[in-house]
């Protein structure tokens, strides 16, 4: 496979990992927001905090990984996207600061009013940030980012039907993934009431996401006919079918079984299908009139970067194994309530 395709594949794997793992973290914040008053929502919040505490920083690595691979691998495309979409991207950046620091501060705070204040900042920015990232995805998918620096419309590029649906879809997907994930986490901790609560939330979020996806297809048909064609009749169709099927199976599993571990897999597949469907549908074009090979960096850069990542993986994999082994120990079912053991579930995201 040619180097640009390998790099793009890695970049898209990074996007996928960020949407799945970072998305579930953001969704945790969404449920934190909707958990109710300080007392009523305490158990939900404790589960959320327990679940994302040790891993959210590592999940940032995926975002940085994507940004760095974008400017290294397809520099002109990165510049075009960042300059035209600087409004939603600046808002995303501010949201990321507010979210991460507020979460760390809440963890370090003991007074109720502080935990409320930092918790509110964390929860609010957990909703706002994926929305703006979603509008960015919608802008690129609907071909509203032309090549060149700041050539696109600064507002219409991200305030348009596709972007708005994508933003809502991003928030919904995050909430859905988090609910599915937390259902199993609560079940494993032996808290059946909390598991049932998150199961209801997962079902509701799943239905909303399914509806939004259907709406999104309708909007794409009017707004981005080329991508719509690829998704419904072209190379991306199998991935769209996979996404829909996995989504339906997820809802069925949630509704009639307690196989929450299996739902994690199908829910992830539903999201992956959508994401890779978009990627395959748009390939080989990155921006209107710009193909991957036109935008790709020189072969020496691609080779050096891919080589460095391969060597880096040799260091990363044993580290991950040790991390996994460390937090597996002593993780019996029934333990882990209220953040007493940050064990295996947290390792999932590495």
């Amino acid at each position, binding site marked *: 496979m040619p180097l640009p395709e390998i790099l793009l594949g890695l970049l898209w794997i990074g996007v996928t990992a960020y949407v799945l793992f970072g998305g579930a973290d953001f969704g945790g914040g969404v449920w934190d927001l909707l958990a109710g008053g300080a007392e009523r929502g305490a158990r939900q919040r404790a589960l959320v905090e327990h679940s994302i505490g040790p891993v959210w920083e590592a999940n940032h690595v995926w975002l*940085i990984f994507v940004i760095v691979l974008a400017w290294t691998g397809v*520099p002109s495309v990165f510049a*075009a996207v960042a*300059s035209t979409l600087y409004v939603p991207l600046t808002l995303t950046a501010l949201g990321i600061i507010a979210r*991460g620091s507020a979460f*760390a501060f809440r963890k370090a705070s003991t007074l109720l009013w502080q935990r409320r204040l930092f918790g509110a900042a964390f929860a609010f920015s957990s909703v706002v940030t994926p929305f703006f990232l979603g509008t960015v995805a919608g802008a690129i998918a609907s071909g509203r980012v032309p090549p060149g620096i700041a050539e696109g419309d600064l507002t219409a590029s991200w305030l348009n039907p596709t972007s708005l649906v994508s933003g809502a879809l991003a928030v919904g997907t995050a909430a859905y993934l988090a609910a599915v994930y937390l259902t199993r986490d609560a079940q494993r901790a032996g808290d059946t009431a909390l598991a049932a609560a998150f199961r209801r939330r997962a079902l509701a979020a799943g239905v909303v996401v399914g509806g939004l996806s259907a709406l999104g297809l309708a909007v794409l048909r009017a707004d981005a006919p080329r991508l719509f064609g690829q998704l419904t009749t072209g190379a991306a169709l199998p991935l769209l079918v996979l996404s829909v099927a996995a989504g339906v199976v997820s809802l069925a599993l949630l509704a009639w079984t307690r196989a929450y571990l299996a739902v994690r897999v199908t829910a992830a597949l539903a999201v992956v299908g959508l994401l890779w469907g978009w990627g395959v549908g748009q390939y080989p074009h990155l921006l209107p009139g710009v193909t991957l090979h036109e935008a790709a960096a020189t072969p020496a850069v691609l080779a050096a*970067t891919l080589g460095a990542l391969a060597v880096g993986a040799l*260091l990363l994999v044993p*580290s991950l194994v040790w991390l996994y082994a460390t937090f597996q120990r002593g993780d019996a079912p029934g333990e882990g309530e209220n953040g007493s053991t940050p064990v295996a579930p947290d390792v999932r995201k590495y």
Partner: protein
Amino acid sequence: MDVFVADAVNAQNLMAARLQMALSLGWHIIVACLGVGMPAITLIAEWRGHRTGDPHLRLLARRWAKAMGVLFAVGAVSGTILSFEMGLLWPGLMGTYGEVIGLPFALEGIAFFIEAIFLGIYLYAWDRMPPVPHLLSGIPIVVAGVASAFFVVTANAWMQQPTGFDTREGRVTAVEPWAAMFNPATPPQTVHMILAAFMVAGFSMAAVYAVAMLRGRRDRYHRLGFLIPFTVAAVVTPVQIGVGDWAAHFVAENQPVKLAAMEGVFETERAVPLHLGGVAVDGELRYALEIPYGLSLLAHWNPHAEIAGLNEVPAAEHPPVNIVHWAFQIMVGLGFALLALAVWQWWAWWRRRDLPRSPWFLRAAALSGVAAVVALEAGWTVTEVGRQPWIVYGVMRTAEAVNPAPGLVYGFAGVAAVYAVLTVATVYVLRRMAREKPVPVAPQERDVTDYKVV
């Protein structure tokens, strides 16, 4: 590209972008320095605590580790923002040269990943692991932290000494990413930065305990809390002075215009004096104290050596002389003041195995943290403002790199507001944490309450 400079909207944009970058990088650099230096100092305390069984050392290690957790979090998010801003503010740079400096950032990503993994183990597995493996799990944090600093600074060094590429018709060709990364400015700049990180961490941590000791808390806990970080900083400082001299020689050889701005030299001359203080007005440096032959001697080891002046390049290519000149003086002055403080401690230790008895020592030490941070910011100002108007020295102007989209000034206002809140909250949370009695490193460690030493 004078068209850009002439354009009023773009001039405003450029200033907003530069201020936003200065604010977010200037903020991140402090937290990042603590992130590089604190793990090593914490590990020293933990290691000594394990060897001696001293509960004071073990409590210090716990508390520092907990603060590290918070600082690592704000460092991670403020660093993420910088990677956004590379594109939001400087698309002209990244669109053309992103691929040339991509490699060190990819390597930095790997180092950051390793840091995050081992920080997770170190913080969350404290009571799940025997002491020695736990101690060992901290070592990758130190190594990866230093490596991150190295990789990031190589990218900045490339902007000072761009090598490893050709340009044809506005597109870069024949990129050699390793040559770009290991450019001539890489050795002095990276070493200078990494040592600065240890100075900032050491003096800042020591300053906290110096303040407590001035308030009368002179027990073993506070003495050790002062001595460990201060000793690390006191060992690093003289090395840093030497490395600073190396870095200045490098600038004299390779960025003569920057040196001229640092020293306020307007005309190319031989036997140039060293200027202390002074203000640049109308193309000359006034009111400065002159040390004859000083600059020629320092820069080239020859009292009659020629020093290039700002007159070698057109006025449009002059960096802002007063800012660069004063930033350089502040950095050097504070560096020597910190060296004097370190010597004071060595002297007392050599004579009596104790801290200096004068209260002035503690008063000075209480200010050393702020002094180290100011020196850091001043040094970084010299590096970055001294390079202006170039974003890539001699190759691309900052005005060519900036995002021409209107309204960057609003983005700057938003970022400034968020950083103001972030600063207040960070300081507040750290101060509260320092006083808390049970010291859980992570939330699950509520069982750790049995620290009777404070």
